């Protein structure tokens, strides 16, 4: 029953839209969000690659603790944390059940826990680094690392077009529902209702594709008039766009602090291996 009520809640497009807008346009003023985005990306790469070079469980536990604290500090929404926890627990559960099914022993769990820790460190690090970061800041950082400018354009475009696209898709779905008739009897596991909505979701993309094609042409023509392609390949324009990225004293402190913490974790791993 919980599944059905969740389904009903999810199929309410208004709710989805509000939730999305809240996530995408919410205020992102947090500890990690205030740092230079280039620094955060470098931090993320280091922290998420380190676990793969070691099998020492003390180091892994230390890294796990460190990333968890960082994600708490950057005030990640509880929804994301809950989803992550459920994912990790269920993954662990399946592996354990299957290992037992195939005649494994409890000895298997030690190495399984090592593996799960590695995966979890990676996902928590990404949450801590990116969940609280402004998408436009992130795309600027990527641009300064040499990611093709089309990507950073796509971020800005998506950011602004998201509400319009969602609105349009909702309109189409609503008009489909107005003209159609939802099944009164859902059938076994409500499969008729699910089938009805799935069909609408797919069919609604037909007008959506045509409308978006028209809109896309207008957008690109407007961009060309403004010299968009030229600015993509112009070094001066790029420099101007990225001039707001600066490493401050606060960022220096962050570098020192992270370096110190990682050193402590590795020292602990060396002298007190689990």
């Amino acid at each position, binding site marked *: 029953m919980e599944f059905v009520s969740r389904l009903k809640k999810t199929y309410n497009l208004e709710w989805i839209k509000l939730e999305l807008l809240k996530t995408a346009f919410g205020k992102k003023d947090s500890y990690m969000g205030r740092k230079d985005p280039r620094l955060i990306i470098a931090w993320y790469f280091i922290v998420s690659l380190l676990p793969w070079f070691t099998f020492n469980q003390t180091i892994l536990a230390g890294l796990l603790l460190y990333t968890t604290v960082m994600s708490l500090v950057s005030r990640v929404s509880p929804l994301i944390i809950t989803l992550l926890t459920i994912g990790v627990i269920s993954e662990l559960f399946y592996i354990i059940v299957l290992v037992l099914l195939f005649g494994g022993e409890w000895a298997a769990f030690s190495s399984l826990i090592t593996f799960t820790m590695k995966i979890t460190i990676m996902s928590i690090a*990404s949450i801590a680094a990116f969940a609280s970061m402004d998408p436009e800041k992130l795309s600027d950082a990527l641009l300064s690392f040499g990611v093709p400018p089309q990507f950073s354009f796509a971020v800005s475009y998506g950011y602004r077009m998201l509400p319009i696209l969602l609105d349009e898709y909702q309109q189409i779905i609503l008009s489909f529902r107005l003209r159609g008739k939802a099944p009164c009897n859902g059938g076994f596991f409500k499969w008729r209702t699910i089938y009805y909505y799935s069909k609408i979701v797919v069919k609604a993309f037909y007008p959506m594709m045509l409308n978006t094609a028209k809109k896309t042409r207008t957008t690109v023509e407007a961009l060309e008039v403004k010299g968009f*392609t030229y600015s993509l390949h112009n070094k001066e324009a790029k420099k101007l766009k990225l001039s707001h990225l600066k490493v401050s004293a606060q960022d220096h402190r962050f570098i020192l602090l992270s370096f110190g913490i990682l050193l402590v974790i590795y020292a602990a791993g060396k002298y007190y291996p689990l």
Partner: protein
Amino acid sequence: MNQLNREQYSQSQKMMIFILAMSLFGLANLFTELLPEFVLGPVELSVSYLAFIPLSLVMLFHPLYAAVGASVGEIIFGDLLLGDFGGLGELEGFIEFTLAMYIAGLLVTNLRNKKQIAIAAIIGIVIDQMLSTIVDIGKVWFGIEEVEAVPGLPESILAIEGISFLTEMIISGVIFGVIPTLYLIPRLYGKIEPLLGIKPREGRVKASMTSWVSVRFVILAVFLTFVGMVAEFMAELDINFAVWEPEFLEQFGEGYIWLPISAAAIIFIVAVSIAVKMMASSNHHKEGKSA
């Protein structure tokens, strides 16, 4: 603009295809991110993506720009804007998905032939799923010390991956992949292209012999890697590694990490070199035309 052959794509038309694929697949991804998952033991019944959108776009337009656009849309709308950017994991998905969709688009020669569309769509999704299975198995392999020393683990991983491969193929591949593609393509063909000022596609896009050979080569390579990976994994169950394993671990030990990274790098280089070759051949073609 005027001296361009109508079958060629101009810079702004490429941009249009990119943006179109990005917005549509991004929107679809927003949607699927929020759909509930139905978990039944290790079987997870969920729609992981609405594959019919990128599939129909790569078939209707230039496959490369549509495939790249769709992957970027997935990253931006599905993850970045939702505050769920996966960092390195996104790179892996990007490479897998772009490659798979690009190949699916190149396979189609006649958009009125339903059988061909269905086969190309299935192959595209199979490649994507196979690549992600390879990466998943690889991760476990390199992430766990002495996989084969843990009884039951290799079988369990294979079972989990096999089940997820199967359910993904049925739900994302057939129900939300092939069937809607077969519904949409005949309706969109000849109708959506003029909206972007592009002539409807006929025949294989830039059907030069070399690109066709490399497509077949990539399909074969992916398939063989998949088979090889699974076979190797199963082979380890029976062989007694205990005799020489400690040395083996000491010798390579933590350098293990470079194996998956280099595998990913090889896939990436293959994808990029194909892309570069395509660009070069199209430019060459263009010069030849305008001269």
